[in-house]
């Protein structure tokens, strides 16, 4: 049934716009595509109204290309810059109210489990740092505590970008923003650690400095959420508009931060590790002593 919705009724092939013909013939549906295949297939998001050099757009495009089963995935978004791109996405997506995205995703996942008990339906939340860690923090945390089978992705640009640059919980200590002129006077929230403590079975902290890593972690997270429990990915996505950078400089900033305070971190429970090893998604870890031998 799921793939039937990606095929065009033969009676209408001659009147379908080219974009949809391309999606049906060269889209990623039922094909094992990944980030490294970008440019070789029709993407599910091609046009969006985000700013030039937006790293959120880069991360978004990367994530969508790494979805294991796009035809069986529903993405839940929330208010923020990313919500401007969602309407252009050619797979099912829901715009939740500001902050309640993880509650919506929880209900959706449970409903899909009841409606399609024999199929895997992935539910992924994609929201900014304001929606995930400030306004929706209670709903984010409780979905993890309840052990919902959903993946949560935070686009961390460390600012409320589309409302002019207010500080968020994710803004680093002391940072001055357009609408936070005296500098932030408390620490950046350590959401990956909260996620671990709240029961997430897979947690990763990445940046747009390494898009291949984003794709790989996201895939792992979706597979782990499908089989085991809640998963969380936090992606550093600097905003050139608010940080007053040239668009071309934003990835350089992501690379710089990746070497400083936004280095790659990954945590997975033993159960997830066994799952990912058995499915071939990752290689088994070799203990140091065994490696020496």
């Amino acid at each position: 049934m799921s793939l039937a919705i990606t095929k065009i009724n033969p009676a209408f092939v001659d009147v379908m716009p080219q974009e949809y013909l391309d999606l049906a013939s060269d889209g990623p549906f039922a094909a094992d595509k990944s980030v490294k295949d970008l440019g070789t297939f029709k993407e599910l998001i091609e046009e969006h109204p985000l700013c030039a050099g937006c790293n959120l757009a880069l991360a978004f495009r990367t994530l969508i290309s790494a979805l294991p089963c796009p035809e069986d995935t529903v993405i839940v978004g929330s208010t923020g810059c990313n919500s401007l791109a969602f309407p252009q996405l050619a797979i099912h997506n829901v715009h939740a109210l500001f902050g309640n995205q993880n509650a919506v995703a929880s209900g959706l996942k449970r409903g899909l489990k009841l409606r399609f008990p024999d199929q895997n339906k992935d539910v992924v939340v994609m929201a900014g740092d304001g929606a995930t860690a400030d306004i929706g923090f209670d709903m984010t945390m409780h979905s993890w505590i309840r052990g919902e089978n959903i993946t949560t992705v935070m686009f961390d640009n460390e600012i409320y970008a589309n409302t002019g640059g207010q500080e968020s919980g994710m803004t680093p200590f002391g940072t001055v923003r357009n609408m936070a002129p005296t500098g932030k006077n408390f620490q950046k929230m350590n959401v990956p650690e909260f996620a671990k403590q709240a029961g997430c079975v897979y947690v990763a902290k990445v940046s747009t400095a390494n898009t291949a890593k984003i794709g790989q972690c996201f895939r792992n997270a979706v597979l782990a959420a499908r089989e085991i429990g809640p998963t969380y990915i936090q992606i550093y996505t600097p905003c050139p508009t608010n940080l007053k950078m040239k668009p071309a400089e934003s990835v350089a900033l992501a690379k710089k931060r990746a070497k400083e305070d936004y280095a790659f971190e990954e945590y997975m429970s033993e159960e997830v590790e066994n799952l990912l090893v058995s499915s071939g998604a990752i290689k088994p870890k070799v203990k140091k002593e065994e490696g020496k031998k």
Partner: protein
Amino acid sequence: MGAYQVLQGPEGYLPPAAAMQGVTLAGPGKAMIEGRHVEKQEAIECIAEKLLGATVPTFFPGPLVLWRTTDYAQERGKLIREISAEVGAKVIPMPDYRPKYPMINPEVEINPNHPNLTIWFNKIDVGVFIGVHCHQANLALKIIRGGTSCFTVALCAEEGHEEANVSLRETDNDTLRKLLATVKDLKKRRA
């Protein structure tokens, strides 16, 4: 309440929702013409007459018929194309509900959130919606009634639409066959 008629537009910017004006959906086996409850056959004849009398009749098939490959859906597709061919109608699809900004090609597709643009561009005077999810159909129908003079027809597989000028409910393939037969019959009589 109850006197409100769902007439051909333009009703004006932000037309009142027909449901708020007291227009109710017809019951099983019935249909609606301009908000009145009528027999299904009367509505089918009305649709056939409107289609044959139109200058630019157009079918707007939605995702529920465009993206289906079951035998039933394929047959439904064939019937829609047969009817459109019989009345000389265009077929402009609404493949999904993405807003399609900043631009679309109104010759080949319809922006679900600005259907009036495609109707104005093509000078469509009778538009038939089929296979569009009900929430989106109501939105599109209301926009069309508000801003254009297009006569709207909803061939709904569920309970029908108050916002359409003519609305059928439970439009299955048998109903489409009846519509096709009525069109052919009317054409023969007119010839």
